């Protein structure tokens, strides 16, 4: 672990909304090249943890260290994104009035300033990244359709694709398989595993089958604190996790533990 090091490290993070503590002094890290799943009951603070990393929520206390020594809590959202953190939201957020190609064009890794957007041409090398990404997502035949016309699962994929072409070092994925069919879930799982080969991925997911299929390690959040952390099997055997989240009789072949 010393050699690889963590890509993001959260230290003593506390977040409260209107006096209610959503995260209570959380210490958490994700290693480089790791696929980590974040699970826990509704309201445990999973999405808020992602929000803290990508700058959507500023913590009351604590630090978020990205890479070796960059403190993210002092940066704005777009600066954090450009450091190499890509976020996929829980409800699919795509630009519905633009085509798939246009959506991905906006997400391509390019300078984001006003002047470079005005005068910087979209080069062929960058445009050449869009077609393979669409092919990977199985959306190549819909390249010039409006994103608003896509099915729910396809919209989820498009948003994952938008994060991919940003070429981030760390992927933050909030429920990427929500509302997908079994077949779509399997394909998404394969996609995430391929991503995890050379990126760090942090994924919030309720679907335990999906988590077991994809994640290297699992962190369980409960009422704003980390309950336990470890392999999928270890977490599923933990009596506290079974009690607060998975439920009794849910131990080994848990399918979907949505509460």
């Amino acid at each position, binding site marked *: 672990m010393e050699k690889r090091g963590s890509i993001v490290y959260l230290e003593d993070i506390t977040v409260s909304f209107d006096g209610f503590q959503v995260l209570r002094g959380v210490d958490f890290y994700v290693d480089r090249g790791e696929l980590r799943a974040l699970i826990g009951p509704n309201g445990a603070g999973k999405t808020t943890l992602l929000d803290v990393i990508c700058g959507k929520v500023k913590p009351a206390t604590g630090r978020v260290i990205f890479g070796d020594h960059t403190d993210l809590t002092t940066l704005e959202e777009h600066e954090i994104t450009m450091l190499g953190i890509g976020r996929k939201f829980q409800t699919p957020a795509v630009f519905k009035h633009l085509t798939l190609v*246009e959506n991905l064009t906006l997400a391509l890794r390019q300078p*984001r300033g006003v002047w470079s957007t005005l005068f910087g041409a979209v080069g062929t090398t960058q*445009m050449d990244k869009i077609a393979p990404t669409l092919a990977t997502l199985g959306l190549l035949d819909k390249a010039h359709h409006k994103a608003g016309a896509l099915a729910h699962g396809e919209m989820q994929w498009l948003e994952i694709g938008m994060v991919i072409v940003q070429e981030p070092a760390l992927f933050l994925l909030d429920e990427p398989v929500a509302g997908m069919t079994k077949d779509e879930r399997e394909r998404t799982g394969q996609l995430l595993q391929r991503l995890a080969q050379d990126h760090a991925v942090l994924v919030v997911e309720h679907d335990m089958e999906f988590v077991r299929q994809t994640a290297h390690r699992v962190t369980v959040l409960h009422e704003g604190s980390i309950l336990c952390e470890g392999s999928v099997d270890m977490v599923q055997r933990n009596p506290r996790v079974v009690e607060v989240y998975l439920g009794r009789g849910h131990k080994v072949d848990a399918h979907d533990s949505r509460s």
Partner: protein
Amino acid sequence: MKYSPAWKKALIPGSILAALLLIGLPILNALGVLSDYYLNLFGKYLALAILALGMDLIWGYTGILSLGQAIFFGCGAYAMGMHLMLESSGQGVYGERIPDFMVWNRVTTLPLFWKPFQYFPLAVLLALAIPAVAACIFGILTFRRRVSGTYFAILTQAMAFATWLMCNRNEMNLGGTNGLTDFKSLFGVSLHTPFALRTLYLVTALCLVGSFIACKWLVGSKMGLVLTALRDQEQRLRFLGYPIAQYKIFIFALAAALAGLSGILYAPQVGIITPSQIGVLPSLEVVVWVATGGRGTLIGALLGAVGINAARSLLTAYYPEWWPIILGGLFVGVVILFPDGLVGIPNQLRQRLRRTRAQLFERSVPGSVPSPTGRGV
């Protein structure tokens, strides 16, 4: 994946517009079909169309409702008005080197802030720069603090009201409620000659065509994608790494500069600029032009500005007291019946026709199951 360059998309509509305004109308004027009076009137509408283009950029494309565009228009018109006043100073009733209204207010020397406007290039530069810089400052104060939507609209409206109040005061040395008028000449050429009127028309048409092509290029470039994305899903765009506030400030300043340009061209053609043209109501009227013509199309804004102003000239000649009611009725009617504006009507009719045909088809097939979407096949 091909990406067609933005200037190509601007070329065809730009040249059609150029042919119409820079060749078509002047030929009609030369043949005597269109009198100088109407050419001058048309020049005024085209100047206002530039104001509408800016409004369409910020509201139609970017989704930011500014209710203060007339402030920036006023900056341009007053700057040009000041230059014209100074150019004809000394020819006034009192023969002083300062505008007549200052003599009435017992001002004896030209106020310092008037001095730069003696020089035409400086006056034009300031007429464009003052609105742009003012919009930048206002944008930094609001957009960087993430003031948006209704709050932003209300703030701009308050600014428009404050500007109107300020310009009404004689102490501002801008002519008070009477504004600036009695312009005589530009570059020593009397403004009342047919030559001056025709030249002003041509310059205005040229500026409009230029602005139109520039705006078309802008919305066809990657910038256009960013603006549309900003309108539809600001949060998503922010987490793609775009500095949202910078983009909003840029487009607000650009719309303000276009409004300034519109004012520069408006003042000499109309011969007067008063506070009544820069307050809350004229700002709202710009919104009506763009909404009526069709948002987010540029050509719609242009047609809306020209069409409504032409209708105003026509109708106020016969029924002056009815005009506000007609304008209000038109706005409400268009918004309810044609949400995409006048340029959106063909498309809307086509869709309705398709729907009706589908319904007729369903009815003609007995026992056919209505489609679950309710929109037919």
